[in-house]
Every structure is written in structure tokens, then in C-alpha cells.
């Protein structure tokens, strides 16, 4: 007998006492919890996102579409970055004012090559206000998972309010599970030394989130 059959057989025998029950899954589980917490206007939701991002030590900037290229240029200059990783379809205007060399991620790029690049700039799929989370789904304006992991400085642009949801339940509704997803809430951190939170371990130690308003974007990636 294969282990598969053995395990499934053991499961069935273990459940011999459980009465046959054909209640559908939807009915079996009451979901009386909230779809979102609190009652907020759209602006308030965006404010909450900014607040919660900052609470977990992300650096938050707010701007509009027109000012965005200048802001990105300044952020990169302040950081002193000479090179910036860009995903395949980053909107070209975002980097139109920036000086540093653009490095394009290629399938053949090795982790060691990525490690030499100082910053990375991406869009995102959605952002969650209640938890201060941005979610990447590997769309062409975000690129492969590794590019937002190896460089030490990540600038993530969120279009507000279109890409902002209030809560975790609303986020899951808009995400596609068949895509590789990375949920990011603040820069890399650890609580492993005396259960106290310290920022900055393996992921980017500086996370800058740019909330950009003022342009109704076309299609959502989510």
C-alpha cells in the first residue's frame, strides 16, 4: 500500500465516529466577523493606510501624478543610489526625472547581480489600510519576487485611492491566488531577540511607500 493510501485510510478510520454531514461549507462556517473595521470615508481610509505604514517604520510620502517623477528623483538622490532595478513595465514617466542607472531584471540575472543594485522601484497590486500592508503580485509593473527582496532599498508606488482597500477580507477578494503574492508590512524586522521588534534583517531595510493621487488609473492589476 502506498503511503498516500495508508494516510487517507487512517484519516477515514479516525473519523468513523463523525456522523455523515452534507451541510455545505458555506453553511458549516458562520462568518459573523466584520468585512471591515469602522466606518471611514475614502480619504480617511487612505490616511489610515499612511498612519499604519508609518507605525511599522515604512517611510510614507504623498504626492500627485505630476510631482511623482521629481519625488522619485529626490528619494533616490537622498539615498545616494547609483543604480535602480526596474520591473519590465514600470510606467516610464515615474523614472523620467531620475538620474541613476536603470537596471532591467532579466530571467538570467543571478541573485549576486541583483545584490549589487542599491534600490528597486515598483508599483503594487493593492494596499490594505487597516494593517498597513502593500501586496505585490508579480504584475509587469512589479516584476519577479526577487527584485524587491535583494536590494536594500524599496520604493513602492501606490495609486490612491484606487488601489487601497480597508481590510484583509477585502484584499483577498481582489487578489488572484494563482499569482505569486508577497504581502509587505513595513521593512524587514525581527522579534527574535528578547521578543522586542528590531527593524532590518534580510529584506530591504528601508521601505518607502509613495501614495500618489490625482490620476484616475486605467485597469487594476488585481
Amino acid at each position, binding site marked *: 500500500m*502506498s*503511503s498516500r493510501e*495508508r*494516510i*487517507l*485510510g*487512517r*484519516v*477515514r*478510520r*479516525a*473519523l468513523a465516529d*463523525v456522523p455523515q454531514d452534507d451541510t455545505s*461549507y458555506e453553511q*458549516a462556517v458562520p*462568518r*459573523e*466577523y466584520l468585512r471591515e*473595521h469602522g466606518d471611514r470615508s475614502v480619504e480617511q481610509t487612505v490616511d489610515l493606510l499612511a498612519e*499604519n505604514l508609518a507605525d*511599522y517604520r515604512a517611510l510614507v510620502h504623498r504626492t500627485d501624478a505630476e510631482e511623482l517623477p521629481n519625488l522619485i528623483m529626490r528619494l533616490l538622490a537622498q539615498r545616494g543610489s547609483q543604480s535602480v532595478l526596474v520591473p519590465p513595465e514600470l510606467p516610464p514617466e515615474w523614472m523620467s526625472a531620475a538620474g541613476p542607472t536603470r537596471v532591467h531584471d532579466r*530571467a538570467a540575472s*543571478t*541573485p*549576486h547581480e541583483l*545584490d549589487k543594485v542599491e534600490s528597486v522601484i515598483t508599483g503594487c497590486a493593492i494596499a490594505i489600510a487597516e*494593517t498597513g*500592508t502593500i501586496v505585490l503580485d*508579480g504584475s509587469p509593473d512589479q516584476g*519577479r519576487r*526577487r527584485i524587491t*527582496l535583494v536590494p536594500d532599498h524599496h520604493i513602492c508606488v501606490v495609486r490612491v485611492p484606487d488601489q487601497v482597500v480597508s481590510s*484583509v*477580507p477585502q484584499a*483577498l*477578494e481582489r487578489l488572484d*491566488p*494563482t499569482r*505569486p*503574492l*508577497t*504581502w*509587505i*508590512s*513595513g*521593512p*524587514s*524586522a*525581527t*522579534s*527574535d*531577540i*528578547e*521578543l*522586542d521588534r*528590531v527593524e*532590518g*534583517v*534580510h*529584506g530591504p531595510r528601508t521601505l518607502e511607500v509613495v501614495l500618489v493621487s490625482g490620476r484616475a488609473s486605467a485597469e487594476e492589476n488585481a
Partner: protein
Amino acid sequence: MSGTFVGMPAFPVAAHDAVRNETLRGNLRHATHTIRAKRAKAVAEVSDWAELREAGKRIKDHTLFHLDRYLVQLEEAVTAAGGTVHWAADADEANRIVVQLVKETGESEVVKVKSMATQEIGLNEALEEEGIRAYETDLAELIVQLGKDRPSHILVPAIHRNRGEIREIFTREMSEWGRPAPEGLTDTPAELAEAARLHLREKFLRAKVGVSGANFMIAETGTLVVVESEGNGRMCLTLPETLISVVGIEKILPTWRDLEVFLQTLPRSSTAERMNPYTSMWTGTTDEDGPQNFHLVLLDNGRTDTLADEVGRQALRCIRCSACLNVCPVYERAGGHAYGSVYPGPIGAILSPQLRGTASEIDASLPYASSLCGACYEVCPVAIDIPEVLVHLRERIVEGGQVTREGNKVILKPAKGHAAERAAMRAARWAFGRPGALRTGQRLASRTRRFHPRTLPGPGRAWSESRDLPTLPAEPFRDWWQRTQGGNTDKGAAK
């Protein structure tokens, strides 16, 4: 079950040693008290905590009651998404599968994300025997590995180490494993974290094989979820060419939507955060992004035996948040090592004896490693009634009865007159005989919790009375505690 902890003394002996170690006690007290207050605050932030907890419990129960169906569905979904599914009935089989998969890649080292399942099966040792080096990459795991130590907490396996000790371990051991610790390393947490970053970086960048567990697996989509903080998980899950995930069969959730419950309750319960820094979700393989070979090893190793126990099976709802450890007065005093298993604390006291059986002294004594104050149940995000299971397991140890071992029904002999009995009694006396150990738990135990006292019935009762075992009080524990000034005026005889 692996032999990692074979030879452990029974709980009271190990706990006694721990209590004598002042540093260990100080470290544990500091860490658990810090996190308790933070967790309470994080939970209070969401007004629907009770509803989330209830939904979490119901989702898990429903899944367990239809586990065969969901396992098959998961297998289909993972396979359709480009992954390969393996089934392992026990630790040895899981280790053999992983060793074989690593050998097929031709590599002799792997990077690992913290995973309870791989610790449970002793995977690192099994790989070592075959000449494959496993690098732990979670900061706390790294501290344990470099210190040639054992984990003592589910979430923070090096919780028993303070910053000074960590500095010393890094300075002494890092050079043995790769890049040495920076010159003049101090004991500030930020510098220690930086030392770990530098030490592990070279390993991440060259790694060809990653090994992980998973917090959740979604049956309908085949998605796996890993929740973490440091980014070492992301490194191991995305940079290698081959990813091998070893996951207990109870980690399934039926639908994608179910994550909306657990992604709210898990971070708040474990690290007391609204959300942990990083969560990775992947479904099979994705062209040009992440590992191109993905293997999922589904692990039984005593889980189906646990599932066969009508009372004890609720332990399989556990999402390993570690909240029950952090509030437990006995854990705080005894330390994680005393539990003799990778699962310490209240959850370990009900899980280990079910996964491994109660043949050894340590496993027979574990259900007694508790004062039954109920604080663990209060904080558990999936409402596992740990005291209920403890009492149930005690009854079975004392009276014997039918259990399932490796899929077969066997009759357990009563413990009377055996070494297990003596170990159990010592554990009970230890847990009850220390008012200081209990006080904290009392504060947290809710007045409203209906604690149904279960004195050992039938022969168990006679056994306990004749042996001066502190049986359970017939009145609510808290009231009994106050009335007797912590048991000082009443030596614990059943009322």
C-alpha cells in the same frame, strides 16, 4: 516521531533544573511579559475578535472532519499548478523523501526557513547523516543552531537566550559556519541582527535548494502560505531553483477566502502585530519567478492517531501562534526545554503525548505539566480547550484505555505502579506546588470561564487520593485559589 529528544528526563526533573537557572528564568519572564501586554493590545484593536476566533475554530473543525477530501483536493490543485506531492506516513519516510530530493539536485547544502514540522521529524540530523548541510536562516533558529542548543519556544526558539549570550554565541561560532561575526560586535539587538544579515547573505545568494514548512495550504487553489518577519523566508522561497516544503496534513484550509480569518488572528496572537512584515503565497511554480521545481511533502507522523481521539483531536486546530506559551505560568517557570519536544508549553503538553504516545516518562508526565488555570484557552485564536484535553489525557494515562497508534487501535495499560505514574505525579506536584508560578496565570484567567472540574473518576480517583496527587478542585480554580491563599491553607485535596 524523531529521536531528537530521546533521553530527556521527565517534565518535573527537567523543570526543576530550569528553575534553578536564574538567567533562563529572567530571560523567559522578561520576554513573555513583554509580549503578553502587546498581544492584549493588538487583540483589543479588533472589535470582532470573538467572531474571528469562532470562525477560525469552525473552519478548522470542518476541515479536520473532511480531511481526506481536502487532502485529495489539495494534491490535485498543487499538481495542476506544477508542483509534485509526496506523502509521508512518519518522520523516517519524510526524511527519506527529502534526502532523496536533495540528492537528485546534486547539491550538498540547503537553506531552511523556520519550520516546526522539519524540527519535529529531525530533518537536519537526517540530512547531516547523508552529508547534506542544512543552514537555519531564521534569526532565532540560527542562534539555536550555532549554540548547539535546542529550541525552547515555537515562535522564538532562542527565547531562553538574552542579548549578551547571543553576542557570545555569534562571536564564537559564526566563523565555523561561514562568514565570522564582525569585529567588536556589541550586544545591541540591531547589531546582532546586522551580524546575522551579513553571515547568511552569502548562503542565500548561492543557495540552490530551499526547505520550508507552511502556515497554511489552500485546498481549492493549491496555494501555500508562509508568514514571517525577517525576509529569510522570502529568500528561501524565491531564490533557490528547488523548493521542498514539509507540511503537516492538518494545515489545510478549504478555501482561499479562509485566509481572511487567520491572517487577522495569527499575527496578532503571535508577534502582537496588526500584520507581520512578510507573507509569501505561492501556487505551484511560476515561469521565471521563483523555484522551478516545487515539492510538497504531506506529513502524518501521528496526526491521524491524534485525529482518532474525539477529545484530543482539537489540538490539530493549532496554528502555532505561541500565545498559549506566553501566558502560561508553568512555561514561564519551567522553560521550553523541560517539555522534551519541539512543541513546548500548553500546546506541547497536549500535542506531544498524542503525536508520540505516552510510552516514555516525559510524554506520560506532560499532561500533568499544568495547573489548569485556563489562561491558554483564553488566548487561543482557535479556541482549543487545552485544560479539557489535559484532563482527558490524564484520565487515560491513569486508567488506561483505547488509543490509536500508527493507525492501529491499541489498549493502553493503566499507569498504576509504573515509572510513568511516578513521573506524572511529580509533574503534578511540581505544577501545583508553586504559588509563585501560578499567580500570573490567575490574573489572566477569566472569571467567566466555566471550568468544569473533573476529578479523576473511578479508579483514577482512588489512585489519586491514595497517592496524595493534587486533584482538581470542585469549585472554579480561581475561587479555590483565592479562598485558600494559593493552596497554602488547603493542600489541594478535592472538595
